[in-house]
């Protein structure tokens, strides 16, 4: 992903203000920022849902302004608001997504997704009755059914306990090792520690970028939480 001077205005409000950065293939890139800093707007542009006001964005080599519909064919998206249908079974949900993604060998893909989510034997369970951790694995499995090369995760583990969260990140790490690029937003700095590189956004701008270790060193803080608070609060008091 290559982002150059990307800007999005809504009327006279600039939600994303001239941001530039790039993300390498197979990298886990953490996209941090306070509520309302412009993270979701950026993600929506990168996914080809929202047209940038100016600047350029290449996602998997495709220009998000010129051919946004092409982007959607090779990305996956998962958010904390589960996109699963609560009244369908696990299998039915996956069949549905396989249909949406027009996967050719649907049966095989669904079977693989169930295995990867660790839900074998539970295919007939109603999604709404599943524990949060399972839903999350299922949600992830449905988001990667079409083998996307870039995966967007928008606050994927909100409200999940540490053990479930760790399992989730282990899956994410495996995906990245297999070459999937992962672009993730989170409010939990414990989670940000799992990222290869991080950026921090404030009021539409990217104000810091680096590996977790680099950021802690540069701002002379013990934890990412302290780095985040000091950078973002500076903006609040200004």
């Amino acid at each position, binding site marked *: 992903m290559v982002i150059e001077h990307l800007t999005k205005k809504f009327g006279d409000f600039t939600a994303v203000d001239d941001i530039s950065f790039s993300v390498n293939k197979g990298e886990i890139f953490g996209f941090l920022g306070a509520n309302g800093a412009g993270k979701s707007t950026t993600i929506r542009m990168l996914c080809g849902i929202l047209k940038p006001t100016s600047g350029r964005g290449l996602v998997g080599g495709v220009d998000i302004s010129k051919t946004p519909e092409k982007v959607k064919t090779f990305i996956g998206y998962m958010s904390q608001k589960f996109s699963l249908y609560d009244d369908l079974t696990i299998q039915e949900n996956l069949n549905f997504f396989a249909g949406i993604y027009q996967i050719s060998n649907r049966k095989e893909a669904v079977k693989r997704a169930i295995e990867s989510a660790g839900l074998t034997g539970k295919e007939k369970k109603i999604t709404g009755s599943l524990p949060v951790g399972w839903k999350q694995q299922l949600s992830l499995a449905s988001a990667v059914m079409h083998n996307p090369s870039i995966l967007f995760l928008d*606050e994927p583990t909100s*409200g999940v306990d540490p053990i479930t969260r760790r399992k989730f990140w282990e899956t994410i790490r495996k995906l990245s090792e297999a070459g999937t690029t992962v672009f993730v937003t989170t409010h*939990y700095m414990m989670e940000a520690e799992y990222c290869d590189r991080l950026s921090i956004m404030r009021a539409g701008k990217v104000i810091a970028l680096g590996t977790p270790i680099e950021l802690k060193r540069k701002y002379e803080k013990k934890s990412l939480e302290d780095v985040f608070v000091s950078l*973002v609060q500076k903006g609040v008091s200004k």
Partner: protein
Amino acid sequence: MKEKIVTVHNLTKSFKEVQAVKGISFEVNQGEVFGLVGPDGAGKTTTMRILAAILSPDSGSAEILHLDSIKDREKIHDRIAYMSQRFGLYQDLTVQENIKFYADLYGVKRTELKESMDKLLSWSNLTQFKNRPAGKLSGGMKQKLGLTCALIHTPELLLLDEPTNGVDPVSRKEFWNLLYKLVDDGLTIIMTTAYLDEAERCHRLAFMDKGKITARGTPKEIVNLIPGGVFKFNSENPFEESNRIAETTQAVSTVFGSQVHVMGKITAEQIQKSINRQAEIVRSEGSVEDAFVYLSEIEKNHG
């Protein structure tokens, strides 16, 4: 001795064939921030709903402010506040209108409303936004408004069910500062959280797992339940090495970013043998999150 304002004794609750709460007992003192932590499905929310006197237990008792959670339900509702994960704010009503709505629900006297509203608005820094529709507030501000509405009838006990999900670190920090101010004024708080860095901020904790309380104490006491502290080392393949340790030794192993944490009956030499390399291993005190992982894994292995 501080006054006990919540006494839970042998509480059980089942939903159809699932036993959500399996005989738990605990006490909460006046002016305390008490944290109920545990994995998803541990029974935390069910417990909170019983404490809020909106759900009746199958057996056992819960005394809230010296009132019985079943018999004195209405009286309890007048004196406590319960902020659930889905606290209802009316998006098209302004900040002030939302507060007034809750004040009416709780029967706050009109003569007292203005004073407590002004006080709460200034406490939560929402005064300048009082005419803004709730739907136009940021996530952190919505959460503060929810808390303000919950407090409008000056409760003595505040129950918070995962109050900070989806809130950024700066807003969370501010939220906690607000909570501490309330505690300084004598309020008692019981909260659940899935984030263990937040649990560190509670005065006392109870760990719940599969409907039971498996450990309790101050955050420091909880951390001390990890025998011999935590071995930590950096790793290029943290998940792989952590899994190898868990498979080949008796120890509990987990991953924090690029660091592996190992707990239990093990030595640094045994760790190095297990991962087959000379890692730079340091031994230090753990965190509540370490203790959580340790206790959950131990429970799984023995239970």
